[in-house]
């Protein structure tokens, strides 16, 4: 699928479309619409979620879903306030997201609701609660 076609598919759910080249598209969405955008992609046989990235931007946390659209890579980005960073799990849409969401929870403290298995992934069991290693205020 071409990058333009991908953008066309999800245009109702995103804003600020940025095409760096014919294989890289970055779009901004929000907490209300990201699941609809992802479901639309899935309905069009786009099944590969490469990974989920979380970035601490200071006041906000950016969550980026990197989705392979058969050539072009779509970066679907949304921003969450750091104080109340929570979103719904996408494992019902992309089952391959299960580990990436666990990663996002333990490393950046984003609460992923409805996750089927919200245990720790990389961090040891005795890691202190509430200390998220990739947040700027993490205790080193």
């Amino acid at each position, binding site marked *: 699928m071409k990058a333009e076609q991908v953008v066309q598919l999800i245009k109702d759910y995103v804003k600020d479309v940025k095409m760096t080249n014919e294989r890289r598209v970055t779009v901004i969405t929000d907490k209300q619409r990201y699941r609809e955008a992802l479901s639309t992609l899935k309905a069009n046989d786009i099944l590969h979620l*490469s990974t989920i990235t979380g*970035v601490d931007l200071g006041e906000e946390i950016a969550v980026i879903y990197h989705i392979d659209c*058969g050539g072009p*890579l779509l970066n679907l980005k949304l921003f969450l306030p750091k104080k109340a960073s929570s979103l719904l799990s996408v494992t019902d849409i992309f*089952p*391959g997201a299960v580990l990436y969401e666990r990663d996002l929870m333990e490393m950046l403290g984003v609460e992923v609701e409805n996750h089927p298995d919200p245990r720790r992934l*990389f*961090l040891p069991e005795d890691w202190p609660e509430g200390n998220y290693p*990739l947040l700027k205020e993490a205790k080193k």
Partner: protein
Amino acid sequence: MSFVVPIGPQHPALEEPEHFRIEVKGEEIVDVDIRLGYVHRGIEEALSKRTYMHGLFLAQRVCGICPVSHSLSFLRAVEEIAGIECPDRARYIRTIGAELERIHSHLLFAGIAAHEIGFTTLFMLFWRDRELVLDLREMLWGNRVHSSETTIGGVRWDIRPNQVPKVLRNLAVLEKEVKHYIDVVASDRTILARCANVGVLTKQMARELCAVGPTARASGVDWDLRRDDPYAAYGEVPFKVITERDGDVLAKILVRLREVLESIRIIRRALDAMPSGPLRAEFKGRVQEGEATGRVEANRGELLYYVLSKGGEKPERVRIRTPTYANIPTVKPMLVGGTIAEVPIVLASIDPCFSCTDRITVVDRSTGKTQAITKAELRGPHR
């Protein structure tokens, strides 16, 4: 009544520390749980504390087998933000470096697979021939694995004309041997008994669980970033994407061996078509504000780097998604329904690289108790 068999974090069948909790009912596996993180080294955080040039060397050390893939993925993202165009000759040298690495990694895997099914002779032969490639890497770049031939904006060493004949000679020997191994693997009764219809991953499961690389291609998923999202010189060097249909351990071995033959062809074509010219573009050490996602077809599949720059000498954030990390969810469907004796070879079949990703316990389902097996119990069956 079921029972939990823990494998790892320290286990003779695992090259690296991970913990697998395998729930069995008699011989049959009914559930699997994996615990990662025993070798988590905080590299993502470390990368944001280092300059880009320093980070490149750290990125190469994420994995002890595929440093070239890691450097190419990191470079793809950094060069995109910095707006650096890699010279043509350097792109070809990068491709040759990546393919030499793929050959040695796939042969390393094939050796381990032979070892896991107790076929030690074949293991020795695979690893003997792997030396042909490691020798080439040593000749070209001074090191067998961590050659660090890439740099931001190009490569650090040229391939000299007097080095080419030896490359072609070793590849010719290797090609003949690998063709023979493909015949052996596809026809030997011991291998077929241990690998055919074992650890099957269906195409649908592979796609749903977002499997990558040879693990997905062995299940018939026709997807290779060298063709679908080309980098280095891949868009200019023709090659075939290898797929198999069955999704079992046998298919996973065959896909990789056939890919070795393709890699040999890619290297020959790249050596032939390599233009002359400069080896590197200038990199001033600072990168402007921006973000980019670099990905390459590493030996085990799609390897993704996301780099965010706020301008300056150091990245703000680097995210790494290694191929084994993506393939971990596929282990469960491959193991469940099989027998406990299949565990080592099925685990080996995704060619896991746990240091990249960053563990199996056996669970008693009726009592819910977990039992860790002692070292003596583990060693018992081998005596």
